[in-house]
């Protein structure tokens, strides 16, 4: 838009197009644009820089309250990792395990994806690379059984954290969501408490469907945190803004690549700056 923001409908169109291109949902874009129009009319917003600052502040205002950290209060702390197919759960578990191990915690992996070809081997390969033991059973066995085993071992051998991998599943598949509820019940029966973290892994390239994913996973098993992966791509991950606006779910980490160190705490300020890079 022009240097001296003669704020006309063309400018508004350009701003709308930019925000939509970030995958911020239409509802939220509309809300931001309407608030911008009000402020323009009240002469608070005069230049191109003003507009940029206004929008950044708005988005920051939505995201900042959702910044969250891992809550690992118990021993062993139980982290359950869930999400739809291919979002980066298994890789993210490896990254988390590595992070916690660097903090001198004893971490155990639980190969809860007993369905997909070579899912167990994939997690175990990561575990071997970073010196973390993976508890597993045969391919096709009941995930609840693996989880039960893993937690028992964690308790008896004094582990600090158990991170449980689950199979990718579309939130629309009732039987698979039931399976997740069952896994949660197994954890609760064995530990007499809720899992310390139930982390939903979302792919930054996803469009509006991410909102459904957050909604359905939250309703099924309650989500304590979100990890947004693949932010090293050209995707801006704007769906996280819509999710932050709609749901009270903390955003805890972002994935920034395929290597073991490519995990960062979610920082609202950094995220907003990156939107406009």
């Amino acid at each position, binding site marked *: 838009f022009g240097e001296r923001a003669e704020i006309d409908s063309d400018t508004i169109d350009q701003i709308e*197009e930019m925000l*939509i*291109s*970030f*995958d911020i*949902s*239409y509802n939220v874009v509309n809300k931001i644009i309407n608030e911008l129009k009000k402020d323009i009319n009240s002469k608070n917003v005069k230049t191109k820089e003003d507009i940029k600052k206004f929008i950044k502040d708005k988005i920051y205002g939505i995201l900042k309250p959702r910044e969250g950290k891992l809550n690992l209060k118990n021993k062993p702390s139980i982290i359950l990792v869930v999400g*739809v*197919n*291919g*979002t*980066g759960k298994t890789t993210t578990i490896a990254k988390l395990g590595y992070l916690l191990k660097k903090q001198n915690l004893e971490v155990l992996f639980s190969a809860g994806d007993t*369905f*997909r*070809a*070579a899912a167990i*081997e*994939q997690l*175990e*390969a*990561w575990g071997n*690379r970073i010196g973390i033991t993976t508890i597993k059973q045969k391919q096709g066995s009941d995930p609840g059984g693996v989880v039960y085993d893993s937690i028992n071992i964690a308790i008896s051998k004094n582990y600090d954290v158990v991170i449980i991998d689950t199979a990718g599943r*579309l*939130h*629309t598949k009732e039987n698979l969501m039931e399976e997740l509820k069952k896994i949660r019940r197994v954890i609760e029966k064995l530990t007499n408490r809720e899992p310390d973290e139930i982390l939903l892994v979302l*792919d930054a*390239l*996803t*469009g*509006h*469907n*991410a909102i*459904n994913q957050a909604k359905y996973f939250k309703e099924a098993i309650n989500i304590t945190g979100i990890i947004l992966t*693949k932010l*090293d*791509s*050209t*995707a801006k991950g704007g*769906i996280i803004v819509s999710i932050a606006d709609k749901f009270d779910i903390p955003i805890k980490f972002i994935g920034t690549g*395929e290597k073991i160190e490519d995990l960062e705490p979610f920082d609202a300020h950094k995220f907003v700056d990156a939107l406009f890079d």
Partner: protein
Amino acid sequence: VLSDRLRSILGKASRKGRLSVSDIDNVLSEIKVALIEADVNIKVVREFIEELKVDLVGREIASGLKPHEEVVRAVYEKLVEYLGGGGSDLVVSPSPPTVVMMVGLQGSGKTTTCAKLANFLKNSGRHPVLVACDVYRPAAIIQLKVLAETINVDFFHKDAPPPEIAKGGVLYAKERGRDFVILDTAGRLHMDEFMMQELVNIRDVVKPTEIVLVVDAMTGQEAANVAKVFKERVGLTGVILTKMDGDARGGAALSVRKVAGVPIKFVGVGEKVDHLERFHPDRVAGRIIG
């Protein structure tokens, strides 16, 4: 739902005659919103709306139809037009084996789709070989090997750089009289220069008849950019949309079809190896409208 929103704008009564200019202006913004919410890329939306406007100006409301029904019909037809065209069959090479190279972003469903395609070909009387060219992802080779064993299809891998593996796979196929070679490649970002060059290297060594972009149906705005870069850098001959068994509206299909200019050949509709269907533009059009 778009149809309901249009009906409240245009009125419930059946009416004769043509759509007026004011009718059209009112509905175009609703249609634009519907397409954006379906994750169609904003630039593709703008182009679509421009062309749709031309179709709608003075359009006759078919007898017995309400005005909003006529508009929905026009949108649907235009979507089918954008999405369709181009055969959904794999092109067979005049000198076998036919090499099919599968490419795409991380986690889009390439490895699973390679197995589905092999299964599909096997059921059509063909003899495919699955070739594992992903040397990066832990257990990627095992994943493809296990899938190959599940459907009793030949599997090839060797400890070498991906272009060498591909070449070895084609040789393996020739020696055994296999007529299709399906290359599974590592997921990669379209802006990763090194990895995009790797695809070019594989392509130059085995000269695939088909280079297929595997796209996750829930992909948002970036689908257009991804398709564009893969098309320009490596070349594409087709697209497969995965995870269509979910509730993603699938607007990425429209973006990719328009930008890459190559046909969508198949859709993945589940995690099992037989969950592959031919692409039907009319079905996806209906889904995008919502």
